[in-house]
Structure formats: structure tokens, C-alpha cells
């Protein structure tokens, strides 16, 4: 369960403060499927980064399964992200020279897992996204939809509780985009993985169980449970 209490984030550049997030409260239960929608600059990405412990809030608290993350050391936060969270980004951030397999196992390698445990987890994740026959292909030789499926496999391989997806279909045409969406919702439905999708696409948000709309750093619709 993720919980944000009175979350604020202020960026300072060249002495000018910019408040990206203002007193946001939100609760995301296990197995939830939430869309965070809003125009660019509305603070939706900032909210996701804070929820995913990629950044620290200026004020307020984030609780992950009841633990206040502001009390955790950098190392503990790294481990938390590695073990409980998975990430899918608009840009794929794949290493084109490496194989599908090598790209998928990155979180496991960071966790310090090797040998048969590593390949078992990787094969499971690669099969789950239907890329079994492309396992040893170089990532750069894949199509856009396949690349995003590799990213989903990479998010999935560590058996996370939550997958954060930042504009997961932004770089894909509508047909492949829909397939990737189906895959993500399938994970939520079948494996009970919590899904947090950041998007500006209202159609995608419609398909989620619930959605919150952000504007000027505040939740204007949907809101706290």
C-alpha cells in the first residue's frame, strides 16, 4: 500500500522557486489500478517520482506498506525500489547492444542474483510478454512494441508489488499501444500487481479502475479515497 500525506515538492532554479506539488494526499491500495492524468507541467510525473522514491519530497510523507520512506537510508530506498517496484518508461531505456535477456535481468543483477535463479526469473518474465523466441536477439533489432514489452518484462522480472508506468504507450502507434495496455492490465488483473499509470491520454485513463486528475500541482478530480 502506498500513501502520500500532505506531499509538497518545490524545485529551485536560479533562485526562483517553482512549486510542482502542493499538499497532495493520495492512497493506493494493493491491487489498485490508478491513472494519474493531467497536462504536461501539472505535476503528475513529480507525484509518480515521489511515490516511487526516486525523489524526496520538500514536505509531507510517503508511506510504503506503513513505513515512512523519509526515515529510510539511501541504501534502503534503493533496495525498496529494486524489490517492490517495477518501472516502464515512455522512452524504453534499453541497451540496444545487449540481448533481450541481458536487458530484462538488469534489476536481478542489481539485486545480486546470478546463475539458474536469474535465468529462471528472466525466462518467466520474457514468456509472460510473449518474447520467448526473441530472448537472444539484440534489443536494437526489435520493433517499438516489442521493445516496450521487453521493458514490461524488465519491470516484471523482480516480482514487484507495484509497477509505475510513465506514458507507457506514448511512443507507440494505437494498435501496438493497445496491446501493451492489455498486457499491463492483465498483470494487474491476474497477478494482483498494483498499477500506477501516468498519462495524458484520457482513453487509457478510462480503462483504469480509477483515475486522478492533476492541475498546477494539485489533485482536481478523483482525489483521495
Amino acid at each position, binding site marked *: 500500500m502506498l500513501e502520500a500525506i500532505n506531499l509538497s515538492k518545490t524545485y529551485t532554479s536560479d533562485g526562483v522557486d517553482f512549486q510542482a506539488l502542493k499538499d497532495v494526499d493520495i492512497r493506493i491500495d494493493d491491487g489498485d489500478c490508478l491513472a494519474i492524468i493531467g497536462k504536461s507541467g501539472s505535476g503528475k510525473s513529480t507525484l509518480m*517520482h515521489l511515490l*516511487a522514491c*526516486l*525523489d524526496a519530497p520538500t514536505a509531507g510523507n510517503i508511506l510504503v506498506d506503513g513505513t515512512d520512506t523519509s526515515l529510510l537510508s*539511501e*541504501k534502503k530506498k*534503493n*533496495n*525498496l*525500489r*529494486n*524489490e517492490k517496484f517495477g*518501472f516502464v*518508461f515512455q*522512452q524504453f*531505456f534499453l*541497451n540496444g*547492444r*545487449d540481448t533481450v535477456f541481458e536487458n530484462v535481468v*538488469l*534489476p536481478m*543483477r*542489481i*539485486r*545480486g542474483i*546470478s546463475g539458474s535463479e536469474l535465468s529462471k526469473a528472466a525466462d518467466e518474465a520474457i514468456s509472460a510478454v510473449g518474447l520467448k523466441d526473441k530472448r537472444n536477439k539484440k534489443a536494437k533489432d526489435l520493433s517499438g512494441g516489442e521493445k516496450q514489452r521487453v521493458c514490461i518484462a524488465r519491470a516484471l522480472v523482480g516480482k514487484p508489488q507495484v509497477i509505475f508506468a510513465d506514458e507507457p504507450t506514448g511512443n507507440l502507434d494505437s494498435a501496438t499501444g493497445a496491446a501493451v495496455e492489455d498486457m499491463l492490465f492483465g498483470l494487474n488483473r491476474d497477478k494482483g500487481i498494483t498499477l500506477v499509470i501516468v498519462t495524458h491520454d484520457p482513453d487509457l485513463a478510462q480503462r483504469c479502475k480509477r483515475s486522478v486528475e492533476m492541475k498546477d500541482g494539485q489533485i482536481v478530480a478523483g482525489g483521495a479515497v
Partner: protein
Amino acid sequence: MKFWDLIRTANRNLFRNKLRTSLTVLAIFVGSFTLTLTNGIGDGLHTYVENQVKNIEGTSVVFVQKKFDIPDEGKPADAPTEYKEEVKDETGALIDPDSMSFTVPQIEAAFKDVADIKTVTPGFRISGEYITLDGNKKYDVNLATLSDGITQKTETGKTIDGANQVVIPLGLARALDEKIQNLVGKQVWVGYKDTEQNLKTVKLEIVGVATKGFMTNTGTFLDSQTARAIYEDQTRGKTDAGKFSRFTVQLASGDEKSYEDIKKKLDEKGFEATTFADQRKRTYDAIGIFKIGMSLVALIALLAASFGIINTLVIAVLERTKEIGLQKALGMGRGRVFLIFSLESILIGFWGALLGIVGGMLIGTIANQYLIRVYSSSFEGYTLFVFTLPSLAIVMGLVCTIAFFAGVLPAFRASRLNPIEALRYE
């Protein structure tokens, strides 16, 4: 990540840009190659000198001579010399403060209260006319004394251990008999002239043929009793008979620790004492300084190459900003990021050093082969390049250390990247 995974990752990252990495490795190679060769020359010299001096050995032996007065520097030419009164030593004999020569009893007296001594062999100045095996064929001879307490390595036979014995050099032995083993136990006659220019001979037994070395290449070594007899014949009636400037003192016990104490006490009495170890250390120190001097050139090359490493890694960090951002987002710690880039840096050094060492050994070995053909007669036993494991390990260690330090700045920059900003980086 497991350590082996890290090294594999680092190596794979490194050779993503093959040309750039290869060029950086090449720069390190040049430095390592030079360092390998300069170390090889130094070790070659060291080994050669070692082979030449180790033929004469002696434990519990010290060489004694009068301490040299250090001349006052910058003293005007017309400055008067201070008068020093003659002093009496323990035996009651007068010691001229300006004389460098002493008698054996004076040296023995100097050792009183310092150390128990077994024998004192003065540096006899003797000269021979010829050496002959059968009386017909005579060879010029260069006589030397083997002081008591000193042993000589021999090709065949043994070192001198009694009176009327002689050890002859290898060249002479080969002239006397093709099979040098046959000479051991045979009698030779050594001719010399006394003070009245009368030719005298002394009959000696060949006990051994000396192994080659700086002194043993030409000298025919006599036992100290024979040397003393010849010396007395050659100095009879002369005013400075029985006075010597250099002595070999055999101590009753050869405790290494006591040497320092003996040296200090003798120093107070105006004598300078040195051991075999001291003499060798001086030579090896000189070789060491020579080696360092040559290595400086290689070190400058390595220093220049290390800027290549910095450059390569700074660019690599920029190129891989997004990748680093992703890795950090997925939970990789700062330390690990630093470690990956440091390892890449060290690996550049490692590959460069490996190539440099292999290349240096290859060229050195070829050069050695060539030199053996060209200079074999005049430099027997000298190998220009000698490659020893410790020296090669030092080259490898040094280069990897320099490479590590070159990588610190880029690795630190990579480790400090903010994952969100890194992922947004265009």
C-alpha cells in the same frame, strides 16, 4: 551485483566503443612497454653484477681501513693545515695522524674492546712473474691473496683452506688443460722476484678453478701464508715494510646485529669498517637509482596516458547518462556506480599493462638473442633484459593504480547523477 558480474559488465561497457577504448589502451601500452623494458635493463644489470660478485663470499668478515677525512670544502688554497700531534695506540706504537698505513698489531689493538677476532689478513701487495705447470710453458700471472675467512666459488675443486694452495682463473686453467678437472691436485710453480731482483719460485697445489667474476676472471689467488712469504721477500729492507692500508678481519662470531656496533666503535677510533653486504648494497643502490632514473621517462608517458583515461571515461559518463539513471532508478547504489566506472578505468590500465608487459618481454627476448650473437665474447653471462616476476608485478600494479586514480573523477561524477535528471537527459 556479484563482483564477477561487475567486471564482465565493465569490460563489455568498455568495448562498446572499440576504437576509443583501443586508442586509450594503446597510450597505456606505450608507457607500460617502456616501463617493462627499463625495469628489464635494471634487473639485467643487477643480475649480472650479482653473478659477478657472488663468487667471493665471506661471513663474519669486515674490511677495515682508516677513515677518510672529509676535506673542508671551500677552504682557501693558502689556508694553513692544522697540526695534529702524534698519538700512541694501545701497543705504545706511534700513530702518525696523516698516515693511512698501519701494522697488523695496530689493527688488532684497535679491535680490543670492540670484537673478538680470529685472523687479520692485511692487503699484501705482491707481484708474480709467471706461473707454470711443467716448467716449459710459462704464463704471465696476476697474483692476489684470498684473505682468511673468505671463500671462493669454483668451477671445479674447492676453495683455499690451507697453506701452499692456489686457485687459478678459468681462462688460465683452460690454457693449461682442456679438461680443467684434471688440474685439481696438480703442482704449479709460481715465479716472483725479491727485492734484489733474484728470481724465486714457490711450489703450490692447485685446489680449484675459479668461477668467473669481476675479480676472479684474471686473478690467481694464493693462500694468505704464501702471500705473506712472498710479500716479505718483496719488501725486505724497505721502510714501509709491514704497513698496510687495508685489512680483512675475520671475527670470532658472525652476528649480523653486532656489525653496526663494531662499525660505530671503530669509527670512534678513526677506522672505517665495511662488510660484504655494505659493498654490495652500494652497488645495488647505484643500480637502483639508475633504474628509477630510466623509469621516470616511462612514468611521464603513463601520466600523459592517464589523461586519455580521464577523457575516455568523462565521455563515457556523458554517453551513458540515461543508462546510469535507469540503473539508479532500478536500485543501484552510488557505490556500485562508482565501482563500475572505476573498474572500467582499472581495466583500461590492466589491458594496457598486459599488452605492454607481453610486448616488452617479446622485444626484450629478441634483443637478448641478438646481443648474445654479437657480444657473447666480451660480455659473457650478461643478459641485457632480465624480466623478473616482482618487477612485472610492480609494472602491472603501478599502471592499474595510476588508471584507478585517473578514473576517480569521472566515476565520482557518474555516482552523483540524479536518476530523474539522468533519465530526462537529452
